[in-house]
Structures are given as C-alpha cells and as structure tokens.
C-alpha cells in the first residue's frame, strides 16, 4: 500500500492554515491565551468608505493586530482576513498595520509577524490602500534597521498579491506553504490585459508553477517552506526569528547580486520547470506532487536556495 499522509481516522486533523480564519491562525500561532488585540471588533472601527459603494463592512476591516507570545518571546502580530474583500488594503486595514509597525519601534519585540492573505489594494479605497502600503514598507525597513525582525507568513487563500507581494519582499524572512502564492500581478489580471496566450489563468498548475509556494521557495523568494498547518507555521516562524538578516548596504548589495544573477541564469526560462531543472532538480515535473518531507530533502540537496540577501 502507498504512503498515507492524511488519515484523519487515525490521527485527527491538524488545523489547516489555508482554511483557518485570520483569528484562528493567530490563536494557533501564538502561545495559548497570550494574544491581546488592539482595536478589537467591539470598537467597530470599520471602513468609512465601503457604505458609499453599498458594500458590507467588517468590524475589524479584515486586519487583526495585537501582541502576544511565541514560545514565550514577545511578538507583535498582524493578520489579514483573506475572505473579507480578498484581504485587500483599505484605509483602516492598512493603518492598523502601519500603527503596529510604528509601535514595534518603541516596544522592540523579538519579532513582528505579518500573516499575509491579500489580493492587494482595495479598489474602493485604492489611494488610501496604496499609500498605506508605501507607509508599511517604510516602517518595515526602519524597524529592520533597528534590529527587529519582520517575518511574513504566506499560506492563505488570497496569497500575497499586488502591494502585498511588495510588502512581503520587504520582510526579513518569509515562510510559505504550498498553497501560498506570492506575486504582483495576478493570473486573471495578466490574462485580462495580455490575453490567454500570455497567461491562461484557468491552468491552475501553471499558476502554481509560476507564483506558488514551492516555486518561490526554490528560487529563494521565500526562506522556509511549511506544511499547511498552523502548527507548522508556528514552528517555522520560531525558526526564522533568530535568522533575520540585517537591513544595511551589504545586505542590499547582496540582494542586488542575487537578483541580477537570477536574471542572467533564468531570464530566458518560460516555465518554472525549466528554472528548477537549471537549479539542478532531476525531475522537475515531479516537484508539484512532492510531499513536504520530499521537498525538504530536495531543498537540502540544492543548497543554494537559502540566503541572507533580502
């Protein structure tokens, strides 16, 4: 009989990160009972703009922020709810994250954890969302320069798209699961603008080979690969806290070299599988189906995917 990875009858289900709500992710990620929310839902700080569009609002505007402990370490946490407006950045949503990052500058937590789940900017509040993303990126670099690691966790159904992808690229470390996607333009956006010949968004396997968790981890776009469970993300976040690269000229020069080298080596590749083959993966076609254990083994054999150039 074949390997049985999932057997709920025997093991019971671990909570899926992909399926969990933002609140459930925080609950499972942090030490039990340690989360203290700031501007909780009872304050009803909802979007002042959505009523204009006759759209429903959420009590937390899809962004939950606060403090807690991760294996005893003090951390600040922000989590996006990907099912509310696609986790998109609106005015309140963005301002809560900006505030949290500014608070971290004074509080000096062991890390700030950002639980991404976003399609990018909320169109109904586009200018506020876009500006907030710029504020977030500035705040993150300031915080990193002050020695506070900012760790992004990406494995929600909305992924980290648009400005969310840019914020992710600003973090000290990124943890991604198979379901997590990191990208600027979404498949549907590319298809709408450039046609299905450029990108067939219904070809889901292509989507994941282009922007999915395994691809991002393989090319060094993410630093750790986690199983799709809240427990695995917790462990991965813990592992990354002590390994955050500094934010200085040396790091960015190393990143410049890393990104230039990527263009030279893979700039003519048409598909993820071609890149993986050049990385030294023997059977690129088999990568999407690899289990976490097999994928970890593959990563270890390649070596070069782990770096501090971020």
């Amino acid at each position, binding site marked *: 009989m074949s390997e049985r990875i999932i057997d709920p009858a025997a093991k019971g289900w671990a909570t899926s990160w992909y399926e969990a709500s933002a609140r459930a992710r925080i609950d499972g990620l942090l030490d039990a009972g340690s989360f203290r929310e*700031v*501007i909780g839902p009872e304050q009803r700080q909802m979007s*002042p*703009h959505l009523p*204009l*569009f006759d759209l429903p609002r959420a009590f937390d505007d899809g962004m939950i*922020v*606060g403090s807690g402990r991760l294996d005893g370490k003090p951390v600040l946490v922000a989590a996006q709810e990907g099912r509310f407006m696609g986790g998109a950045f609106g*005015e*309140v949503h963005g*301002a*809560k994250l*900006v*505030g*949290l990052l*500014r608070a971290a500058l004074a*509080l000096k937590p062991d890390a700030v954890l950002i639980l991404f789940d976003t399609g990018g900017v909320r*169109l*109904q*509040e586009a*200018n*506020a969302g*876009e*500006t*907030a993303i*710029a*504020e977030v*990126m*500035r705040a993150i*670099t*300031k915080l990193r320069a002050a020695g506070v690691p900012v760790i992004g966790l990406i494995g929600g159904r909305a992924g980290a798209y*648009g*400005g969310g*992808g*840019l914020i*992710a*690229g*600003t973090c000290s470390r990124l943890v991604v699961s198979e379901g997590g996607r*990191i990208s*600027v*333009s979404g498949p549907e956006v*590319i298809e709408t603008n*450039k046609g299905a010949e*450029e*990108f067939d968004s219904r070809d889901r396997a292509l989507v994941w080979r*282009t922007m999915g968790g395994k*691809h991002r981890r393989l*090319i060094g*776009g993410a630093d750790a690969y986690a199983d799709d469970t809240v427990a695995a993300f917790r462990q991965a976040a813990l592992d990354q806290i002590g390994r955050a690269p500094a934010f*200085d*000229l040396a790091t*960015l*020069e190393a*990143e*410049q070299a890393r*990104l230039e080298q*990527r*263009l030279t080596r893979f*700039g003519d590749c*048409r598909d993820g599988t071609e890149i993986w083959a050049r990385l030294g993966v023997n059977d690129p076609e088999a990568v999407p189906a690899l289990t976490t254990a097999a994928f970890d083994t593959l990563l270890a054999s390649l070596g070069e995917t782990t770096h501090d150039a971020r």
Partner: protein
Amino acid sequence: MTLAEIIASLFPEGHSVTVAEGLVNGEGPFRGGRLAVIGIDGDTALGVDGACRLAGYVLDVVRRGGAAPILVAIDSDSQRMSRRDELLGLNEYLAHLAKTLLLADAHGHPTVGLIYGHSAAGAFIATALATRVLVGLPGANPSVMDLPSVARVTKLPLDRLEAMAKDTPVFAPGLDNMVRTGAVQAVLDPDQPLAEQIAAVIDALPADDTRDRAGRERGGRPVAEAIAAQVVREAAFG
C-alpha cells in the same frame, strides 16, 4: 512638463542624465554638490530588468557616499504584466528597488519623488512612493486603476463612479486625489525653476512619515492617522 524640460530646469549648467529603454539615470550639479536622478520615462512599464537596473543605480549612489539627494522622476505605466516577470519574482525586484531608496534615504541621501506623468500600482509603490517625500507636476496622473476598469471590477456604472469620484478622493485616480490622500506632498510650479523648488522641498523634509497626517488634514484619508496612533498608544505586552 517633459523629462527634458524637467532636467533642463533642474540643471541649467548641464548634466549627465540619460534615458535608455525608458530608464532614467544620471546626475547634475546641485547646490554646490550633486543631485542624482533616476526614474522612468515615457509611460514605460516596470519589469524585473528595469527594476534591477534602477536599484543598481541607487546602490551606486549610496556606495559613493556623501549626501547627494536622489530625485526619482516618474512617468511610468504600472508594473509590467507578464508571465516571465512573475515567474522571475517581480515582487522581489520591485521591493528591492523600494528598499534601496529607503536605505539611501536612511544613509543621508534625501530621496524626493517627482511624478510628472502617469504611474500606477506596483511601479508607483516601488519608485515614487518609496521616497521620503513625493511631489508632483501639473498634468501628472497617478492612479491605481482607471475608472472604466474600476467599473468593471466593482460592477458599478461608470457614470455613477465618475460622480462619486468628484467628492471621494479615496478611490479616484488623479494627482489631486493623491495630494488629498497625503501621498503627494505638494504640486510644484512648472513656470518657476525646479532646482530651487526641489531644494526647498529637501530643506523642509519631514523627519517622520507624515503622509497620514496630511491625509487627515486634506480630507482624503480621514481616519488613517488616528487609527495608527491608537495602535501605537495601546499596543503593549501583558
């Protein structure tokens, strides 16, 4: 104003600014020192290759030391929308470009964004919005998405959106709306020499990120500042 007019107005004594494939790079004399210029011209989309080169230019300035300010002049399309760009990790390239600008600023090279044409979405965030202060020129047209596209996505009639856009700066495209949101600090006067106006902007650089305060004062982002401030006040470890 065109890029050539901008450069001429900035550097009446001459400069080394060149444009290749829509990417702007060079410098010129400025207040007894130098002003570095990078940017995007001609409504060019920003992809992995362009972002990487621009980031390299910024790092060159930082590596050279000194305190030369960096002007980021922008007339771009959005990010380049293609399979190849995303395959190669466009988010990392755009974020890297933004980080180099933020690092340069932190290293004593004041960064000033100047939007004189179009810009949108990821290209806007990675360039003009990653500077310490962003100013615009009349006629500039930053946007996240044009109204017909917004109409398509939100399934609202275009004429209703156009009516809403008149008094709702938070979602409508255009320079004025970005000013009211606080993203663009000021609009420069194209009839006066730019060198002096940019110098004045640099002299008045805010120490902190004051875009949310401006957004409240100008009515484009009514609550962001208060929300962020409340989080700063109330976040604590139990």
